[in-house]
């Protein structure tokens, strides 16, 4: 998992942050470790008291939801404190900030799609493989000859198409999501290897517009971070403000009730997987921009990171409940941990152990908040 990350993390910004060769040893304003902690803890404590003081009213549910996100924010703040203490000269730099977001953007886009699928009661194991396939397909010589726009459209269409196949097998072929997407994982990766002949395909100089997404900066941030932000924003709006989002919760929470309420559950399920595939296609564009390549080895084990981020973010694996914001916070926690381990020059194996522990702790804490709810 980390190998893959290190290989995609090869942009200049990442290298600089990892090497710590930006001598910005001045901490960010107010960013001393001692000065940074109390407010966060204090706020959490005050909020907790305020929550306890208020009588438990009808909106208990929403308040628990806020508390859950609050926990994730506190965890993120704690990690930031760790970064400030251990590597004060390299953590709180704008270039490190950018590198964290760039690292998060690829899986972040996938995580948005995964959140929809999991809230809808499913699972998508094929996301990494679909992204790899899309990146390979878009970087074949034939596709590249049509220019960067066609490459991006091709990646998105391939991703959406593969997602549609998943959805069709699950909805109309009545396959278990785990199995159907497992099959897609294997097959898409194989197809990607075939198409690329197991070689890494470079984005040609004529199509450098793709690579510009990671090198062109607006207000100090590479364009691909804006793409990430846009996908998150659109995902949030669709989930919370549209009939599609509302039906997603219904289909995941109680498929039989959804069906008897007149929702076309099968069609909706198919669209959820297509949406996940679409996100993989967008992620493929981002990975091409960051690595300047399309490769069948891209995105190995991304499915696990994406699922972990969704679960840490408080989405139930059984469906029906969850939030995009939670998933993104979960992903940021993961990414910051990766970043901290790289900055401190620590063993990547320990990093995996730490991530495993975080998943367990997050789920245990969520179960407690679930129990207080009932």
């Amino acid at each position, binding site marked *: 998992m980390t190998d893959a990350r290190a290989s995609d993390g090869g942009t200049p910004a990442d290298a600089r942050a990892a090497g710590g060769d930006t001598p910005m040893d001045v901490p960010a304003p107010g960013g001393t470790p001692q000065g940074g902690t109390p407010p966060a803890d204090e706020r959490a404590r005050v909020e907790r008291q305020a929550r306890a003081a208020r009588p438990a009213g009808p909106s208990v549910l929403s308040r628990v939801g806020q508390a859950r996100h609050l926990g994730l924010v506190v965890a993120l703040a704690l990690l930031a404190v760790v970064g400030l203490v251990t590597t004060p000269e390299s953590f709180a730099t704008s270039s490190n900030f950018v590198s964290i977001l760039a690292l998060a953007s690829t899986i972040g886009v996938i995580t948005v799609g995964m959140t929809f699928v999991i809230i809808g009661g499913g699972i998508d194991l094929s996301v990494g493989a679909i992204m790899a396939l899309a990146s390979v397909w878009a970087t074949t010589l034939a596709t590249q000859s049509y220019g960067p726009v066609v490459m991006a459209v091709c990646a998105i269409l391939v991703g959406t198409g593969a997602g549609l196949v998943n959805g069709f097998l699950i909805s109309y072929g009545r396959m278990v999501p785990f199995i159907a997407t497992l099959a897609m994982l294997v097959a898409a990766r194989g197809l990607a290897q075939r198409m690329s002949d197991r070689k890494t395909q470079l984005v040609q100089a004529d199509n450098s517009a793709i690579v510009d997404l990671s090198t062109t900066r607006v207000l100090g941030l590479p364009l691909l971070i804006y793409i990430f932000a846009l996908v998150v924003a659109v995902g949030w709006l669709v989930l919370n403000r549209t*009939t*599609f989002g509302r039906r997603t*919760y*219904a289909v995941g*929470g*109680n498929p039989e009730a959804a069906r*008897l*309420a007149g929702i076309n559950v099968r069609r909706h399920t198919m669209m959820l997987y297509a949406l996940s595939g679409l996100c993989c296609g967008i992620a493929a564009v981002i990975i091409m921009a960051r690595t300047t390549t399309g490769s069948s080895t891209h995105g190995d084990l991304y499915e696990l990171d994406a699922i972990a981020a969704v679960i840490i973010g408080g989405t139930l694996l059984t469906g029906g409940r969850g939030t995009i914001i939670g998933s993104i916070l979960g992903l940021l926690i993961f990414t910051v941990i990766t970043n901290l381990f790289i900055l401190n020059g620590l063993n990547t194996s320990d990093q995996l152990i730490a991530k495993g522990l975080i998943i367990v702790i997050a789920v245990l804490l969520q179960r407690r908040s679930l129990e207080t709810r009932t």
Partner: protein
Amino acid sequence: MSDLLVMRGIVKQFPGVRALDGVDLDVRAGEVHCLLGQNGAGKSTLIKILAGAHQPDEGTVTFGGEPVRFAGPIAAIRAGISTIYQELDLVDGLSVAENIFLGHEHAALGFTRRGQMNRAAAELLGRLGHGEMRPTIEVGRLPAAGKQIVSMARALSHDARLIVMDEPSAALAHDEVGNLFRIIRELTAQGVAVVYISHRLEEIREIGDRVTVLKDGRTAAVGLAARETPTSTVVSLMTGRDVEYVFPPRPEPGSHDNRPEVLRVEGLTLPGRFADVSLTVREGEIVGLAGLVGSGRSEIVETVYGARKPASGRVVLAGEPVRPGSTSSAVRRGMGLAPEERKSQALLMDESVARNITIAGLGRYARFGWMDRKGENAAATRLVETLDIRPADPRRPVRTLSGGNQQKAVFARWLVEDRKLLLLDEPTRGVDVGARAELYAVIRRLADQGVGVLLVSSEVPEVLGLADRVLVLREGKVIHESDARDLDEPRVLDMIMEGSAL
């Protein structure tokens, strides 16, 4: 007789609600002790405390002379208290025998002794009068009544001294209720005590010895004589009202004859469930289906709605055929269904009342898929008021509502948009007396507004009292059709049970 179980001053507090506020209960060995109360009175919480699923915040429980405090369900079972829940807690993928002995399998060195277990299960089933049920069959393939029997057998397998039954008759047909009573009498003759919860007062009169009435988390009356206490006393203890069933007035017979047909079903057949069913519902008319469990009544309704696909026959709504097997097309065309199992088939338990109400009509509150949340909330609030859903807060999670109010939320779902036809399957199951009358009034009001209603109920008085026209079903066939006023309960019971093994 000595007191087997004594509960004193039981208090249970949940976030935001005091479910029990000082409840007393005395149960003697060998008696059938009935627990009565409206939905939300605290019956479920009380029996969960008995079963060890909840721990009381205050109060004492004495069982068999010893003070007890059950840490969990296993502790309660070990002590000799078995509970049969309303929502049956069976594993669908396991066999009947495996379910009966779940958690205390006959085993040697960790290997289950299936032969022995199957024999023991067959014996227990025989004791329950269901020797014909094969212990090796998968529970998921049994109908609701069959699952009930398995739950009973499981309780028996624990050698319980006290068996708690939460609405055991709700899923049973009339003859099966008789069988249930025979089993209960057999148990009590052996000194086992039964705590019996039911909304059907006539059952309590038949099987019960004493009655404890709960109201708003408190004990309203302890140990009333089940047979001698007049119904009016019991009902007023529960509700403060003096009436049992109140059916709204019906229009004159034949007054629908000239109105257009909303629904025409022709020769509908689903092999193994029902055959060649034809019926019509006119505008403003309530048509009732009476029949036993397994007579095909729920399946007919579900097929009309598109939740099942018929082998042959057709469904015509307002003059145009309906696409078979598509609920979304049924809803688009103006049908609505309140299904039999409220919790598993109708409600999104994690969501708010408002979201449960609007889920079937989302399109109405959206433009190009974009939700108009103000409009949605306003509509939900209006419907909560119209149907008097309590507490009157649409943002409240629907799981915190009582059964009657949950059912009203399901009704409200179909009032968002004008419906041509409403299919109501057991609309008052698990609903207390007071809320029933309100639901009846709502159903009649809808019909008066021109909606056609197809009603299914296992309670014959309900069908006869509410419907204009009644179809009697037996073994998947319509055997009688007439105006509801021309029928009475004994006659209908005669018809639906004639030919069935007694």
